[in-house]
């Protein structure tokens, strides 16, 4: 099947580029003065975090359009985006503690941002569990659309309350009102890494989308 192959090639391209980004990050990007080598995880952690949150918003948007248009493609996309979002969430929740242990001295703290990510992760898990618990495809699509839209609406609330707590987590250094406060080499490495994660997201989603299409063709009434 062509779509599956396309997805596979995009993913391979993304993984190769990711290796390239890390060569650049480790060898050609300056070492941060205070954090040392631990800071290198930033190029993995932040793009994954951005796509975890964006993934949920895309699930929600696809769900809104699904309820109006009843197009099964939108439902398939929402399911694929949720699965990939869950993987990216896992990356964020794994790389975070690895960085936190040497820098903060603890693997986990109940910081607002950490809690937000954990909540997002659990919302993805719930979404996929609900999809697994409903067998009728039409019902499953509508139920998961309702849950996806609710999830999308919850994200701004959690995001808002992040700013009301005092936090241990580093403040935004790239997306903020003033200019990004990091050296140009680091910024370029970060932006490259962000592009690579976008490629990976597209690749993974295309593959999952193609797989659910194949599954539907294999068992049309399941």
């Amino acid at each position: 099947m062509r779509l599956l192959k396309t997805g596979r090639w995009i993913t391979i391209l993304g993984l190769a580029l990711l290796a390239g980004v890390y060569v650049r990050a480790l060898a050609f990007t300056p070492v941060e003065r205070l954090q040392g080598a631990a800071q290198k995880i930033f190029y993995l952690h932040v793009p994954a975090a951005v796509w975890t949150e964006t993934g949920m918003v895309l699930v929600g948007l696809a769900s809104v359009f699904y309820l109006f248009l009843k197009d099964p493609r939108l439902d398939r996309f929402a399911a694929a985006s949720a699965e990939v979002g869950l993987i990216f969430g896992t990356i964020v929740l794994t790389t975070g503690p690895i960085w936190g242990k040497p820098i903060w001295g603890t693997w986990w703290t109940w910081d607002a941002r950490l809690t937000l990510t954990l909540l997002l992760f659990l919302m993805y898990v719930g979404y996929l569990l609900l999809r697994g618990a409903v067998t009728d495809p039409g019902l499953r699509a509508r139920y998961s659309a309702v849950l996806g839209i609710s999830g999308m609406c919850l994200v701004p609330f959690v995001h808002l309350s992040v700013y009301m707590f005092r936090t241990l987590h580093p403040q935004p250094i790239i997306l903020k009102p003033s200019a990004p406060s990091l050296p140009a080499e680091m910024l370029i490495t970060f932006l490259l890494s962000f592009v690579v994660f976008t490629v990976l997201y597209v690749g993974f989603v295309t593959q999952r989308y193609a797989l659910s299409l194949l599954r539907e063709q294999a068992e049309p009434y399941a």
Partner: protein
Amino acid sequence: MADVWRHAWLLARKDLLVEFRSRTAILSAVVFTILVLLVFNFGRDPTAVAAVDLAPSILWVTFTFAAMLALNRAFQLELENQALDGLLLAPVSRSSIYLGKLVANLVFVAVVEGVGLPLFALFFNVPVVPVLGPLLVVIALATIGFVAVGTLFSAMTGRTRFAELLLPVLLLPFMLPPLIWAVLATAALLAGRPLSESAGWLRLLAAFDIVFVTLAFFLFPATVNE
């Protein structure tokens, strides 16, 4: 719109009538609340942690569990003898079914909380009377928020496998933000701080209520339409 409210009220009245005639669910929920409070009493070391420090968490964990029980029941009631189909065939709008269920659930949870709050004050020796008014505002705002989401979700999970397990898994991530705000506001109140200090949390709670009641009102038809 007047019709929507009238129908919603009729549905809520029907649910509550069924409930208060049998009284099984409400009694179980009340006894459950008492038991959770008891468990909390033995789950802490009274010499190490003062009751008032733990009080907000005790109160809200108890209410969370009690609400979960109530919400699981709401649509289970309609599954017997395919009562839901009858409800859907009736000439009432889908959204008024949601509002009716929401009102019935709110009354149910409010009764449980009404029993739970005095017992909580009694068991843990927490001075709730001086802050009763503001505390009730916090409880009402948080309860409306998570019962609104919970009513929507229970309409979906009720018809899946593992309904009793799936509802908490889906609902708890949505309950956590209002729960965090409510716990913070309750802690400030019990520590004798003025209500104005928690105004930010109350505003968030109110915004959460408005957004999710509206959202559920419009999304509910998608969960029952065939």
